[in-house]
């Protein structure tokens, strides 16, 4: 891993002025900390992906198949015919530059090929040069070039410096979504056996074992039982969630990061505490033990394959509907892809109806799957939760809109509504850095790996800088989010840029604030938060 410069040094090194040489004449230079390690040979083999081998992007020779040109061109042709988005976005960009300074990776690195327009142009130039008549005739004048190995390397470098966050597409007058281009770029690279381990290994684990981390069913259960003990420490509750239980009303699916890694585990504890409070008839699955889906960062086919087990399990268990935990890209899949690729939902599923409030979630009547924040917001709106927001008083909270729920769902109010009811101090970051204009954590789309740290800290800078703003202005010290990748990635990011600010999930704060009947009557007293820290800072009396 490359050594990171100090935050100030990194900031001051940012220069948005492009180099003198034309981008087509500027060869790609692999900078340390800005590319990810390739997938291990075994992982590629297991998945049955093409060209498993030992190689490194640092090598001169990438050992790609000798007919690589045909493979890529054939692959492009196929995708142009399958995706209108791809074809259209190759054709209609006017290079107006409205998207140029919207990408966090450009803002943090100043590398011009991280401007969404140029990122797409890396592909567009090949499309023009190999597939269109004007491109073939006029070449460079029309922005066309030929496909060379150098281009392949450039694709690898820059399509794994895009977090598929879609911020660019908000600002483009034609809605050109560079994420779509990146997805195509990654699919094409897979055809040659060019890939990264941080994505493919979780994918392999997911396919063969059930979750990204490769936790086997007994370990999943054990992990969750540990969390239950911790909950008992804090609340005195003895929670025994059921696993793979047929006949439960609800299947609950969370990203595996939530029952594995700090601080996600506190969010998971939050879910469990809430369900216990409600006496909800739900089950967890150690088979469908992953809500997340790194297949989305691999190929549409892989995304479908990984997603398929959710409905399959819901059918087998005979549940009525599915609740999904707090996760960003998971929800892009559940909202925009699941029904299309693996629907229609199994017939035992019904339109989700809250057993507590009776609310029918009409907007999910086809997928039969709702977001836990929708579920909880509805409970709060109906006054079904006894909440003591002062239990979170040591926190001054802001909310990070994760890219996928924001620009792929329009999910803005539900989490804010919850936060405003479970804590007393909530401040949004500046308007142009939240909601649909939110900035990526810098580590999305499977780029949250250590060897990519330089780019992660750069790409995360716009987000961190906005957090720093509310930290200075309002004393914000807690960054809430609804994404498992964020909970891990933002923690690292905050440590680097704004170390005074912690990271949590929304349901961690919900559970802190949730007043159980025994606590209300004073029979029990809550003095600790889910992290087993005093609810009130030392100097104050815990009441």
């Amino acid at each position, binding site marked *: 891993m490359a050594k990171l410069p100090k935050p100030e040094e990194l900031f001051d090194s940012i220069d948005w002025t*492009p180099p003198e040489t034309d981008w087509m004449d500027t060869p790609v230079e692999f900078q340390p900390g800005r590319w990810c390690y390739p997938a291990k040979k075994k992982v590629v083999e297991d998945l049955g992906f093409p060209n498993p081998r030992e190689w490194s992007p640092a090598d001169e020779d990438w050992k790609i198949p000798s007919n690589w040109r045909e493979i890529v061109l054939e692959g492009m042709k196929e995708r142009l015919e399958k995706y209108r988005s791809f074809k259209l976005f190759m054709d209609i960009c006017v290079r107006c530059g409205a998207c140029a300074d919207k990408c966090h990776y450009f803002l943090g690195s100043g590398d011009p090929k991280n401007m969404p327009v140029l990122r797409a142009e890396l592909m567009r130039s090949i499309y023009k040069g190999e597939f269109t008549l004007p491109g073939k005739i006029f070449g460079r004048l029309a922005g066309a070039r030929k496909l060379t190995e150098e281009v392949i390397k450039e694709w690898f470098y820059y399509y794994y410096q895009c977090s598929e966050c879609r911020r660019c597409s908000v600002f483009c007058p034609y809605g050109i979504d560079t994420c779509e281009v990146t997805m195509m770029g990654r699919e094409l690279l897979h055809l040659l056996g060019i890939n990264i381990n941080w994505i493919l290994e979780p994918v392999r684990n997911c396919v063969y074992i059930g979750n990204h981390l490769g936790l086997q069913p007994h370990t999943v259960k054990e992990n969750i039982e540990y969390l239950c003990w911790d909950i008992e420490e804090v609340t005195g509750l003895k929670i025994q969630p059921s696993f793979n*239980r047929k006949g439960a009303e609800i299947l609950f699916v969370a990203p595996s990061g939530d029952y594995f890694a700090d601080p996600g585990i506190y969010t998971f504890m939050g879910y469990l505490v809430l369900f216990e409070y409600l006496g909800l008839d739900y089950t967890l699955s150690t088979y469908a033990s992953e809500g997340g889906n790194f297949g989305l960062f691999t190929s549409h086919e892989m995304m479908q394959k990984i997603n398929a087990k959710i409905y399959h399990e819901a059918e087998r268990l005979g549940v009525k509907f599915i609740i999904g935990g707090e996760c960003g890209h998971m929800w892009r899949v559940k909202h925009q892809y699941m029904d299309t690729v693996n629907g229609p939902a199994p017939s035992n599923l019904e339109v989700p109806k809250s057993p507590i409030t009776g609310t029918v979630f009409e907007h999910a009547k086809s997928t039969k799957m709702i977001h836990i924040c929708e579920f909880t917001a509805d409970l709060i709106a109906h006054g079904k939760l006894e909440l003591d927001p002062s239990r979170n008083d040591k926190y001054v909270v802001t909310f990070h809109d994760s890219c996928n729920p924001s620009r792929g769902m329009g999910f803005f109010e539900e989490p804010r509504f919850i936060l405003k009811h479970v804590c007393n101090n909530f401040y949004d970051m500046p308007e142009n850095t939240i909601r649909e204009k939110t900035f990526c954590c810098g580590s999305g789309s499977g780029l949250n790996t250590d060897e990519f740290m330089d780019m992660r800290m750069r790409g995360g800078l716009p987000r961190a800088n906005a957090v720093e703003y509310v930290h200075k202005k309002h004393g914000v010290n807690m960054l809430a989010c609804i994404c498992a990748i964020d909970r891990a990635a933002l923690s690292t990011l905050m440590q680097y840029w704004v170390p005074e600010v912690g990271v949590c999930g929304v349901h961690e704060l919900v559970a802190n604030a949730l007043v159980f009947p025994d606590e209300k009557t004073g029979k029990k007293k809550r003095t600790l938060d889910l992290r087993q820290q005093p609810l009130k800072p030392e100097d104050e009396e815990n009441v």
Partner: protein
Amino acid sequence: MGAVFALITVVAFVLVVYLGVGVAGLHFLFGVIIPYVAFFTFLIGMIYRVIEWARSPVPFRIVTTCGQQKSLSWVKRNPLESPYNNFEVALRMFLEVVFFRSLFRNLKAEIKGRNLIYGSYKWLWLFAILFHYSFFIILLRHFRFFAYPVPKVIDGLNQLDAFLHIGLPHFYITDALILAGLTFLFVRRLADPKLRYISLASDYLPLFMIYGLVISGILMRHFFKVDVVGVKELTMSLVHFSPKVPQGIGTIFFIHLFFISALMAYFPFSKLVHMLGVFLSPTRNLANNSRAKRHINPWNQPAKFKTYCEWQEIFYEQLVESGQPIDEDCPQVKERKKAEGAE
């Protein structure tokens, strides 16, 4: 570089017409054949492009949501930025096409000290609007050359556009506005290093062609006055497919005609297809209702994945040991039982 190439091309256009018409007298070629060819290239080319796009399906509902989704009844949703049905999509598209809604969102990132600031930056939007609307109105005005009698609306538009009553014939406001728009779009490509970096010859060329078109038009109206009656005779003959080129129309007219012909012929092969492409953009023209209504992907294949029962076989021991239920309905379990019974 690209700008220089575009400039040379446009100058070459002028020279070609000057030599072709002014010197060689090829009036029919430049007055009839080239315009017809260009017009049909435009027409057929654009239809072809749309058909080509439409042939590729939209496998997924990849709406870019820029506002609150429809969820709980009491959550205030944003029908324009996150449309839930086709009517709302139509409204969203209307805003996009007529008011350049997304461009209106534009921000400009700046570094101030150790802070990143994103201020509102509407200039591109403003001048893009000026440019497009002037172009559109100018185009409409031109219908007075292609219709007889001239429709009242077109007449009215002409008078409105010239209401300042400067010069004779009166100067059109849109002529000034389109020049302002073009100049902004051009200067910003040169002035902003990022834009200069991404700009291609094919980004300067349409701007220069339109410059040529507009300037030749203005020159023709106000300076080298051409025989307007003769021009109308020519345009009407083109409309009626009985082309006839009257004598004595100035060369400047043919330059103007050549520019519009070049632009039309260039259209379907260039980024100018954005004019139709924007209507097909899947991030904008779909409803964000994919959890309520199943979106169909025509090439979808059923997923191949490890079923629960297959998975249970692999982790059978772990499941039993950790006290997780075994699904007895799995055929593999039944076989297992049978094998055990046989032992």
